[in-house]
């Protein structure tokens, strides 16, 4: 429990860093006199966010729903797909390299297909989010599964465990640290995926999601609002990242090197 509370304290660290960066940024902007149209001061951004808090809140909620759903889909597909690909050598050789394509397609280029197949607004934003986030999970899962100690696999082979059983009881648990890396990367990507998805899909509900807010604010040169919206999308990403990190830590801290604190020579 003590260690969990320590983990909680870690949440404070980035907040302090944010504060430090914000102050430095404020000072730098004032000192260099860069136009607020290009780089607004954090205080100005804060003010704008405060004044538009209601609109931004609803936008954030919508984008968060898209990003979270996309992340969930990417996680599920990435882990399942990665496991299948890792288990079947011919797939690993043929499909795995091709899977890179899913993250390389410029979303705007395939937007028509997405929108036509999935409809406007949320579904397309979710799909865009999932498409952008799935490959890191897939790649990390595959590489994690392929790194499972052969010695441990032999234990399962001797017991006549099925591939499915071995996956549940050995491969997956042993790959969790690697998969967590993939999920950490996917956390941020799912947010940007949702935002780009919103660019191309418009919005169904009454209120605009963050992607639309960014677009319109840019058109109107309300750079402080652009940065405010970006900051909110970043917060969605942080929270996702934080949740992934904490879940990962809870799962592996008791047995994996990454969960143990650093040793130092004492004499």
């Amino acid at each position, binding site marked *: 429990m003590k260690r969990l509370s320590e983990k909680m304290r870690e949440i404070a660290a980035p907040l302090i860093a944010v504060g430090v960066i914000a102050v430095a940024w404020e000072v730098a902007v004032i000192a260099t006199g860069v136009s607020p149209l290009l780089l607004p001061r954090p205080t100005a951004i804060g003010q704008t966010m405060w004044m538009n808090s209601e*609109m931004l809140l609803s936008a954030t909620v919508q984008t968060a729903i898209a990003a979270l759903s996309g992340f969930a889909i990417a996680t599920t597909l990435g882990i399942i797909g990665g496991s299948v690909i890792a288990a079947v050598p011919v797939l690993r050789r043929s499909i795995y390299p091709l899977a890179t394509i899913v993250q390389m397609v410029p979303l705007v280029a395939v937007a028509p297909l997405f*929108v036509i197949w999935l409809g406007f607004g949320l579904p397309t934003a979710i799909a865009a989010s999932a498409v952008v986030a799935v490959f890191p999970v897939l790649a990390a899962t595959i590489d994690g599964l392929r790194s499972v100690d052969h010695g441990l696999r032999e234990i399962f082979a001797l017991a006549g465990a099925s591939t499915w059983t071995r996956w549940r009881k050995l491969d997956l648990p042993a790959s969790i640290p690697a998969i967590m890396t993939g999920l950490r990367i996917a956390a941020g990507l799912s947010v940007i995926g949702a935002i780009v998805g919103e660019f191309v899909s418009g919005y169904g509900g009454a209120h605009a999601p963050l992607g639309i807010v960014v*677009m*319109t604010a840019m058109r109107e040169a309300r750079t402080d609002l652009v940065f405010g919206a970006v900051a909110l999308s970043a917060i969605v990403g942080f929270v996702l990242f934080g949740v992934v990190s904490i879940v990962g830590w809870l799962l592996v801290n008791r047995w994996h090197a990454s969960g143990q604190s650093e040793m130092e020579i004492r004499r």
Partner: protein
Amino acid sequence: DKPSSPGASGAAALVSIQVQLNWVPEPEFGGMYAALQDGLYSQAGMNVELIKGGGQVPCAQLVASGRVPFALVSAEEVLTMRARGGSIVGVFATFQENPMAFLLHEANPINTLEQLWRSNSMVGVNVGLPYVTILNEKYSGAGLKLVPYSGGLATFLVTPDSAQQCFIASEPVECKVRGVPVKIISMAEVFNPYAAVVATNEAFLKQNPAVVEAFVQATQEGWRRYLATPQKYNPAIVALNPSMSLEAMNIAAEIERSSIEPAAGKGFIGEMTAARWEALGKQLVACKVIDVCPPVNEAFVAPRAPAPSPAPAPTSTP
């Protein structure tokens, strides 16, 4: 349920119609919101949903594929899609004059397209639009620094001697609201397609000619009302898009009026002529966007002139 003859059964079953907009709710769609607000569409037997767009929404593909019955596109999109086999048809042209223009700071000595294109200014333009090719051919913009228009105004505002493409009812309004003195140079003299064209697809048109007609007429009437008193309708649009102020919307409505309203005594709202489509087709072929111009008479259905008296849209077809 398939849309069928509208208005025939009175208020019984409204035909559900979706319209994909190509931008967020703004005065450029004012007539449609006015028609919605005044119930013109429902009087015409339609339950219209205006789907808010996001700037990169593939409107032409959506309507060509039948995903939505109507979408807002540009005239050149109609011709290019048709040239590539898309079955898209323009049925109503919101802007009679090209609303795309170049935005310059007021102090900029440049005043004409020719001056601009022969200068060595930095000009933000959308990649892949035909007017760039046309201007290049015409004035050989050798010294010009063409940069991509990224959808924002920031670069322009901080660079006094730059120019960028704009939508007359959007960026100039924003500058006005901010108190930044700017001027615009229309590109209509070299490239003047219809803009904010309401398009449908051939199949829908063939199956539901009455619906299309009724929709066009209601839209036409909506625009008439909107242009008469935009202040009456803008608050509802602001509610849908709070990021643009009411003040800005009112200014925008005034600016766009001249491009939408027919000159006194000539034509009517939404009008389209084969000559204009032909001219556009030639230009597109000339700048190699398309190889041959598709037959323009199939590319659009000219809206009928409205009844002389400002009456509500026709509600009865026996």
